[in-house]
């Protein structure tokens, strides 16, 4: 069972987060692939679903990871090993970095969680080289972690702080509608990429929403 009322991210909450992300991805797989069709190669949902199935399998079984850090590192490693494409290494490395930042932390409160998420998002930026405005998942992830940092600094309770991060992610994803992509496959289309929402930004909203759901109480 998860930690009481979402005051911190412990091993159970981490498991719930990853599980919920896998669920949301499976529910939205067709939508994500459809978003990837006009500006990409029609596989984002297919890729993430493959990863979601593998992650769920990795969470169970005899060698199931025991700490929040291990849960997230295992999930990340599984994504890297099964998703492929651009999103596999990016999401996979991000979760590994989040996990790494939580090593030794039994139950991460707001500051620890914000620091861990920042480490994950930094990894995405470092690997992919994208900035806000390039029409990628960074457009959702970076505003989300900034919102979380802001709210945590302001002393907002964790569930509410994460709620703000979800909203920031959602707004960031919406902002990609108008953008001409500069990274990812959409960039190959030049001006034609404008007018489409970035699929990776949308799946990033799911990642944040899954965290909010996990912290909102027992899954």
């Amino acid at each position, binding site marked *: 069972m998860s930690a009481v009322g979402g005051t911190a991210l412990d091993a159970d909450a981490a498991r719930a987060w990853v599980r919920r992300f896998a669920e949301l991805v499976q529910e939205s797989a067709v939508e994500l692939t459809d978003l990837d069709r*006009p500006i990409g*190669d029609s*596989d984002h949902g297919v890729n993430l679903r493959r990863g979601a199935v593998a992650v769920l399998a990795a969470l169970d079984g005899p060698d199931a990871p025991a700490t929040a850090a291990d849960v997230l590192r295992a999930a990340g490693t599984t994504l*890297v090993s099964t998703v*492929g494409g*651009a999103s596999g290494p*990016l999401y996979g490395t991000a979760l590994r970095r989040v996990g790494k930042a939580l090593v030794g932390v039994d139950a991460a409160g707001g500051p620890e969680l914000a620091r861990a998420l920042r480490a994950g998002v930094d990894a995405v930026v470092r690997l*992919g080289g994208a900035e806000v405005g390039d029409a990628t998942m960074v457009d959702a992830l970076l505003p989300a972690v900034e919102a979380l940092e802001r709210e945590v600094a302001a002393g907002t309770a964790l569930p509410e702080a994460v709620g703000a991060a979800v909203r920031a992610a959602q707004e960031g994803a919406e902002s990609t509608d108008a953008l001409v992509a*500069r990274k990812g496959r959409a960039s*190959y289309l030049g001006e034609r990429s404008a007018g489409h929402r970035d699929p990776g930004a949308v799946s990033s909203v799911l990642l944040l929403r899954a965290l909010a759901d996990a912290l909102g109480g027992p899954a």
Partner: protein
Amino acid sequence: MAQLLNDPAEAVPDALRGMAACHPDLHVDLENRVVRRAGGPRPGKVGLVSGGGSGHEPLHAGFVGHGMLDAACCGAVFTSPVPDQVLAATKAVDSGAGVLHVVKNYTGDVLNFRMAAEEADEEDVRVETVLVDDDVAVTDSTWTAGRRGTGATLFVEKVVGAAAEEGLELAELAALGREVVSRSRSFGVALTACTTPGSDRPGFDLAAGEMEVGIGIHGEPGRERVPLAPAREVARTSVTAIADDMPLDGEVLLMVNGMGGTPLLELYVLAADVRAAVEERGGRVVRALVGNYVTSLEMQGSMVSVCRLDERLTRWWDAPVQTPALRWGR
């Protein structure tokens, strides 16, 4: 969308079983989805590994064999392989002389190969990487994902493969591969779209009498949709796009590549016009390859690729090659 498959989700492993069934020269590692030469690594020879999403056949697995690749990593359709696959291939073909990765410039391919290279490094396998980014339809810039790797991948794999057989070292091969890339350009058009196995519709809808120009090799739309043009104009558009980026004087290797569903009759019609267009620009076509080599499933369309040859490149292009899809000299 009529497809000759069993379970669409199993298209890649099923096809690999077919390769295993038909090519005794190849070893197919079904677990890792890696196709290797049956013989294993030759001592002292640098290993050549490529790979990428499936759906581009014969690229890459069809180019495994003497004089070309040592191994190909087969990702899901249009999805780069994962690091585990690349690492498995890399370790399997390393004879101690190191391994060269030939990577098409897509974010996914770059990241997955890079992660594999880092892991290989941790296991003391030396890896160098050649990035192929030959597609002139994409404007290059340090602020973008850069140009796509397309037809020139075949050139790199063939030339570097021949040089590797001759015993060149890892750093030399990496430099040679980069030189081939710098001398190569491609441009493609689509007359029809293609449908990823398991998907219920094609990547885009083209009305009769339309075409997409400036496409890549992942079934994605191109830079522009224009009225369907005669072969002569497709040739001119393609060669102009290339020549505007790289002068075409001197001896060139020309590939008139089909996107998978274009009949050879049409490719040869186009080839006549492309050759004429290249020569108008001052290029002399001394080697030519016509066929479906770097494809997007059943897409109809063409890709023109050009490599400016010199005496060494010509010699390595002509050198013996023995793979399922490219074979001469032995």
